[in-house]
């Protein structure tokens, strides 16, 4: 059945709308908070070697693959990953086997899309909380890390207080996703992404030029130098290489519930994807290496001296936790100017997160749309699922604070381990094998069609056939080992013994239910719409 017979479809209104949406999808909290921590822990300046090597021989080629999968699927009105993979896989396998592969991918996509977004929007709620504190000026009441922690504990332990920023973020996601690509997502990213870069540039200039009145010897440049100091001995540790690949994976949002193929499915058949994908990766690297590699550690040292550096560099604490506990005190102690800088910092982080979350919510919405439910109802169902699966985080915070154990985030950390570490790598491995290795020739033609640049053949064939599968299998082994779930569940000691495993079990139950539901939706949708397409 030709494309014309399938009827009209939604497409991006402008090229820059597409690129900003894809860049927004990639640019998230990880650029500004995860990357600096990884650099500090895995070799400093020397980490650039595994990082950039992974970018060129793994990240960018898999990005090209995902864009090609998406644009190909869009021809057949497939706007989520599972039916796309069905259409592609049946070129080499029987329909039954192709359906089975698609069902697995559909299950993983729904479980990942819902659970990851559920905890991510909780975290974005905390960013919205500090943004609100900054805008209202109340952040000036916070002048020590202890006070910041008290505000955060109050937020996490009071379910109503915690629900407000979480629900606010979910409502914004619905408002953005429900109208569709051109009228919702594209409009939102055209506002959020320029503002994100503007705020980041302002904070970058502040970091590089301003000396705080807290202690004049706390030089922001020194903070950056701490991070970039090379420790070449770390390159002998396989962890640095795997973490370099892992960071590239997370930062480019590869394999995450098929969100890149979903966005690419709205591209017209003859429009460029090779150069557009490279441009998206470029914008992500500007946000990560230049801005993320400067702001967090620079500001941390300027406002807190060596303590934040020691916390990350030596004790292995995540810069994310510093962002919500130490940084509010930094901004708060500077009065009005600090409140303004804090507002920029937390709004930037919220924008970075929401532009990623909207891509996830959109993918889930497309799944339900294929059941004939209509866009608005599908978006509402998606957001409702996010609320239900994110609610345990709020409840856990309340219970543990009420019993004076925390608050803790076992549910969040466990879900992050299973979904954030494992499932996306598995999805990427399936994409690489079935859409890359098996049909690399057709894929190479697809990715270069309409291209404003030509994808090098060695990057396409060599990576998808050899390098990517090896790396991805190694990551599947390494990432769970590095996360160590026993540490997650045992983190708070004896009083938490029943609640920690209970939260992990609840998360597992949600993941299993969503996986089964995703597989069933996939099979139903494919039998209804896609069974004979692409022949």
């Amino acid at each position: 059945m030709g494309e014309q017979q399938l009827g009209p479809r939604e497409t991006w209104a402008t090229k820059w709308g597409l690129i900003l949406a894809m860049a927004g999808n990639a640019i998230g909290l990880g650029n500004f908070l995860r990357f600096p921590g990884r650099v500090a822990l895995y070799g400093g300046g020397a980490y650039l070697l595994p990082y950039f090597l992974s970018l060129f021989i793994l990240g960018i080629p898999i990005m090209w693959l995902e864009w090609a999968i998406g644009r190909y699927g869009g021809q057949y009105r497939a706007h989520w990953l599972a039916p796309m993979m069905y259409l592609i896989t049946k070129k080499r396998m029987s329909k039954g086997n192709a359906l089975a592969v698609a069902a697995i991918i559909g299950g993983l996509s729904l479980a990942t899309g819902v659970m990851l977004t559920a905890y991510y929007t909780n975290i974005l709620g905390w960013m919205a909380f500090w943004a609100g504190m900054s805008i209202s000026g109340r952040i000036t009441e916070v002048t020590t890390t202890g006070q910041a922690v008290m505000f955060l504990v109050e937020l996490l332990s009071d379910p109503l207080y915690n629900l407000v920023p979480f629900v606010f973020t979910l409502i914004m996601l619905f408002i953005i996703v429900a109208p569709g690509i051109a009228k919702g997502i594209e409009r939102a990213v055209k506002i959020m992404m320029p503002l994100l870069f503007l705020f980041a540039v302002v904070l970058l200039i502040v970091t590089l030029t301003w000396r705080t009145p807290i202690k004049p010897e706390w030089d922001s440049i020194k903070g950056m130098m701490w991070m970039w100091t090379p420790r070449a001995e770390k390159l002998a540790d396989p962890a640095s290489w795997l973490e370099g690949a892992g960071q590239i994976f997370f930062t480019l949002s590869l394999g995450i519930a098929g969100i890149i193929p979903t966005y690419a499915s709205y591209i017209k058949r003859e429009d460029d994807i090779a150069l557009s994908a490279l441009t998206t990766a470029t914008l992500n690297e500007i946000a990560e290496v230049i801005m993320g590699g400067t702001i967090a550690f620079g500001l941390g040292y300027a406002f807190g001296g060596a303590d934040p550096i020691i916390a990350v560099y030596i004790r292995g604490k995540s810069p994310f936790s510093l962002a919500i506990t130490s940084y509010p005190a930094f901004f708060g102690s500077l009065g009005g100017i600090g409140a303004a800088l804090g507002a920029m910092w937390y709004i930037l982080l919220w924008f970075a997160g929401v532009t990623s979350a909207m891509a996830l919510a959109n993918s889930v919405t497309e799944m339900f749309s294929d059941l004939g439910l209509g866009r608005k109802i599908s978006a509402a169902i998606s957001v409702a699922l996010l609320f239900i699966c994110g609610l345990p985080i709020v409840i856990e915070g309340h219970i543990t604070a009420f019993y004076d154990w925390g608050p803790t985030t076992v549910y969040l950390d466990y879900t992050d381990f299973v979904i954030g570490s494992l499932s996306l790598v598995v999805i990427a491995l399936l994409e690489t094998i079935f859409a890359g290795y098996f049909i690399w020739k057709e894929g190479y033609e697809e990715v270069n069609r309409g291209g404003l640049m030509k994808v090098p053949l060695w990057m396409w064939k060599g990576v998808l056939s050899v390098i990517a599968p090896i790396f991805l299998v190694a990551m599947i082994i390494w990432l769970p080992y590095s996360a160590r779930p026993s540490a997650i569940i045992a983190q708070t000691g004896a009083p938490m013994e029943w609640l920690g495993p209970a939260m992990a079990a609840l998360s597992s139950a949600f993941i299993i239910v969503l996986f089964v539901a995703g597989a069933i939706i996939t099979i139903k949708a494919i039998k209804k719409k896609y069974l004979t397409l692409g022949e």
Partner: protein
Amino acid sequence: MSVETLTVVTTNGKEIPIVIDYSSAPIFMALGWLVVLLITLYAIYKWKSGKGAEKK
């Protein structure tokens, strides 16, 4: 000063000196920025040459 010694106090009160020589840090930071800049320039060049070819 490009060499700094930090004293980290452990939870049992032991003091551990950590010496960091960050004299080569600017080189590596500049290298990172340079790679990103080169990718950016390459992408801009390709957009411009692609638009030129379209006009022809």
